[in-house]
């Protein structure tokens, strides 16, 4: 299990479009990806649940990759967050 912590920089937070893109890119990976904010956590493939977490600009999330090529998955996630959020 590998993970990294990321602070959201997008002013709108995790809004519909990047959440959609996130789900899309998580589905391409062979690891199970979990997004965690405080006590709450959801799988990266669940669009509405992700949006439902209401992750805002400046908030910290932990991105966790489990199974498959974890390093590759995590690197892809890191790039995705840096570019989109």
């Amino acid at each position, binding site marked *: 299990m590998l993970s990294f912590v990321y602070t959201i920089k997008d002013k709108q937070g995790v809004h519909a479009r990047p959440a959609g893109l996130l789900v899309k890119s998580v589905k391409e990976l062979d690891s199970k990806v979990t997004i965690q904010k405080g006590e709450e956590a959801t799988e990266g493939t669940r669009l509405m649940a992700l949006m439902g977490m209401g992750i805002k600009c400046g908030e910290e999330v932990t991105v966790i990759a489990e199974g498959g090529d974890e390093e590759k998955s995590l690197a892809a996630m890191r790039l995705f967050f840096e*570019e989109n959020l």
Partner: protein
Amino acid sequence: MKDYQGKAAFSGIAIGRIIEMATQEDTVRRKHIMDVQQELNRFRKARDLASEQLQILYQKAEKEVGATNAAIFEVHQMMLEDEDYIDSIINMIQTQEVNAEYAVAMTGDNFAGMFAAMDDAYMQGRAADVKDISARVVRVLNGTNETQALSDAGILVADDLAPSETVQLDKEKVLAFVTRQGSTNSHTAILARTMNIPAIVTTPVPQQFAGKMAIVDGFLGKLIVEPDEETLNIYRQQQQCELEKRRLLAELKGRPAVTKSGREIKLYANIGGVGDVGAALQNDAEGIGLFRSEFLYLQSDTYPTEEEQLKAYQQVAEMMAGKKVIIRTLDIGADKQIGYFNLGKEDNPAMGYRAVRICLTREDIFHTQLRALYRASAFGNISIMIPMIISLWEIRRVKEIISNVKQELEQQGISFGKVELGVMIETPAAVMISEELAQEVDFFSIGTNDLTQYTLAIDRQNERLDTFFDPHHPAILRMIEMTVTNAHKAGIWVGICGELGADTELTAAFVRMGIDELSVSHAFLLPVKKNIIDCD
């Protein structure tokens, strides 16, 4: 005459008759079903069909309002595929033995309720999206049609408009949008803006005015029902003025940017990628004054290869068909970070390891980009511009590397064209040594965003400094003037590619200083051109 105050979502004046758009309340009844499997199949088929409809809608929207605004329909499609949403529907059909319509409507309401309860205005707005997709599936299940056709042109009044309804409307017939609910952040408001239709939201207008004359004032966010003759006349005049303004801008298309005294200013466009070239050409760009090459590095997860870069540069050069295309070499660092560069954290990134400083210490990256740029020059009129220069030795070193690249290409028998080399003037240091710099290059392009930040020592993202920030500060204008003078002394041309170039309050001043070129984003091309034509 009655006034209803809403919130302005898009400016403009519309005068016409009110068309009440009834919200399509698809009444869904709970029915007990016998065959669960059959009901599940009905649902899956309906969902697939709804998804296909959204795909078609996405394509229509992409054509009419652009990919960014159309993206909501892609999100709608993904919501339709959401596991939790689907599981909830299937679960309801199975355990409660209810009809698919009811399961979809209930699930839609539940999820909409979740969004509506969130403490974020944007997310509350997403409740409408969930309701929109659920209503679509229910319509497919019921076999009902989706849009009401408009027979006459008029002002559309509705409780709320789903984005899908907005896009499907016959644009020719909608003079304005007025909604009782909605927000200025809603996708409908955003779509109205791109469709250029006046729109007001949260307008408390009762439902009794269908067919009545009305005025929509998209500047003040007001709906005036049954206006008296005097009000009508005032608004007719204002509407005329607005149309005149738009017509003027349209008329400017095709006209050269020449001042009254006959001086021609080159009007170029700033672009961030190949996708922006179309809009630049549509708005009469005579060339590309700033092509930010960063996108190639940002959208890739490793260093883009020479071939990948060549493809993008060549494409823009060919689309511009012989017109000048000025490509800025890699300008990352500071606020633009890329993971695989491993630049590390800096205490003061704006003054740190960025742009040409990276290129001159990691020459392999620079070398690849220069090779791609030179190879692309065989296909069009390419110029190269180097960002963040502060010293003469830097540009001299760049020239050495370039001459190596040229030699290499010649030896390999790869053809390339003539390429102008310029520097961006975006540090006070570059301004102060512009006389010497001008001896080394073919042109200057003033990057006013960084020049302003470094001259005033103000971070423009910092709201607390608003009182101190003056984009027209005399120090900046004198810096620009000094650069222009030194460029002309050496016989090279000089332009502005920062945001200040699009500031129409300054166009006349720039022309007076002797600026040769202005490069602005496509939306500002025609307004700036108008100002140039009006200059003496």
